[in-house]
């Protein structure tokens, strides 16, 4: 069963359209949602989390339509967002007291162990925490009510290398339970490449691809060649090219490149760059 199924999701704003977005998150996997600023990642997440209404399409959480999700399903979902969270006027202790009354599976022992593990202090007011500390708190909250589906929107942005790694390690632990799933939207492609099983690339409100990460990296390659040699290649093999005055760099389908051409290992960042650049 899929943790999340998004099908033909549409939403129009003045000057921006989210067009027929579709992707699935199978159980036990991490899906990375990538795209430039304003591509539509947060709109997708806000629709999934019921904060924004969709115009059309379907969203299913654990096989149930979003409109019919009951409190049991919302108890199984946790959201960590960079720009919103728990009221900052509260202390961590106050926040726990509130959450105990909201989530039926709230586990105080687990929360306390995360708070200690992440170096937080129960007596501190949320507004006194740094960005990294706030993110850690949101993550501790998300992981303390037996959620099966974790949604993180730009949760590692603004964090230093150590804090990011700490959060990614926690996510890797979380996903060890094969019935769980994670949707991670971020600008930091290295993080995605490290932990995601699937990648969905959103560009101008459209899904460019939604595929298994390893398949993507196998499917594409980058070649550095001059323009004359580039013309020797079958045009179907070339996805996009990036021409400069002295050389050309191209994203190509690895299996369509004849022997003799030296290919480089590609990265998700390369693939994203070529698709966004767009020149064939």
């Amino acid at each position, binding site marked *: 069963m899929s943790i999340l199924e998004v099908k033909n999701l549409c939403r129009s704003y003045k000057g921006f359209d989210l067009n027929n977005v579709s992707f699935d998150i199978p159980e036990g996997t991490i899906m990375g949602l990538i795209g430039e600023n304003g591509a539509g990642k947060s709109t997708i997440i806000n629709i999934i989390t019921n904060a924004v209404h969709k115009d059309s399409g379907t969203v299913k959480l654990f096989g149930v339509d979003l409109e019919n999700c009951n*409190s*049991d399903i919302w108890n199984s979902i946790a959201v960590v967002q960079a720009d*919103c969270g*728990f009221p900052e006027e509260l202390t961590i202790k106050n926040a726990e007291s*509130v959450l105990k*009354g909201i989530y039926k599976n709230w586990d105080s022992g687990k929360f306390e162990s995360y708070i200690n593990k992440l170096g937080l202090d129960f007596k501190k007011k949320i507004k006194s925490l740094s960005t990294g500390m706030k993110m850690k708190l949101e993550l501790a909250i998300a992981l303390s009510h037996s959620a099966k589906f974790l949604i993180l929107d730009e949760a590692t942005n603004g964090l230093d290398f150590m804090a990011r790694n700490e959060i990614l390690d926690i996510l890797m632990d979380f996903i060890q339970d094969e019935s769980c799933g994670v949707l991670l939207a971020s600008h930091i492609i290295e993080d995605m490449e490290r932990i995601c099983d699937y990648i969905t690339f959103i560009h101008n409100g459209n899904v460019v691809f939604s595929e298994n990460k390893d398949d993507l990296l196998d499917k594409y390659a980058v070649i550095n060649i001059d323009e004359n040699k580039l013309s020797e290649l079958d045009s179907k093999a070339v996805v996009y090219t990036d021409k400069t005055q002295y050389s050309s760099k191209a994203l190509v389908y690895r299996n369509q490149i004849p022997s003799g051409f030296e290919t480089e290992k590609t990265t998700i960042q390369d693939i994203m760059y070529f698709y966004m650049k767009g020149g064939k």
Partner: protein
Amino acid sequence: MLGLMKKEIFMMKNSMVTAGIVMLILTIAMISSENAEIGILSGYIVAFTAISPITMIAYDEKNKWDRYSSAMPATKRQQVLCKYLMVILSIVILTAIFIALCAIKGETLIYIKGVIIVPVVMAITISGIELLMAYKFGANKARFVLIGIMFLIIFGARIYGAMDMLSVITRNPAMFYIGGIIVAFAVYIASFCLSVHFHSNKDF
């Protein structure tokens, strides 16, 4: 639901403690002055509860709580209901403090009843309108509505005086008070239903 109420209480705790202390100080000042009319303090209940709805919604807007809580196991109706219950709770607490202070000063039950019902009715009605405006237009715009309501109250009080309404009330006070309470709660309930509708259809 209990958790959401706790959140509102934590958020409003400081404002409520401050309101209680100010009320206490004013009362002490009035008790020590022989000619002072303690009934004036009931107006404080109206002032505090008129500000509370905007304060609560403004806190939520600042923290983007509505977006954060959208994925929580609490319906939009429950989230709105918490705010409405919180305002009623504030009115009950302040009214209880006021009655206790009147009793300490040795005021009669008839006097207390006479000075408390109208402010409570006003507090319920105004906060109902305030909450509705805040849910529809946001806390910032609701502030302007509050100023407008205050103007209407002053203007209404002048007409009230000019029309010698006091004699109407004194002729049939029970009817006036019961009618007022019914109207206040009707406004409050209608406001709640509309706020749920606006909140459920809003994007955060």
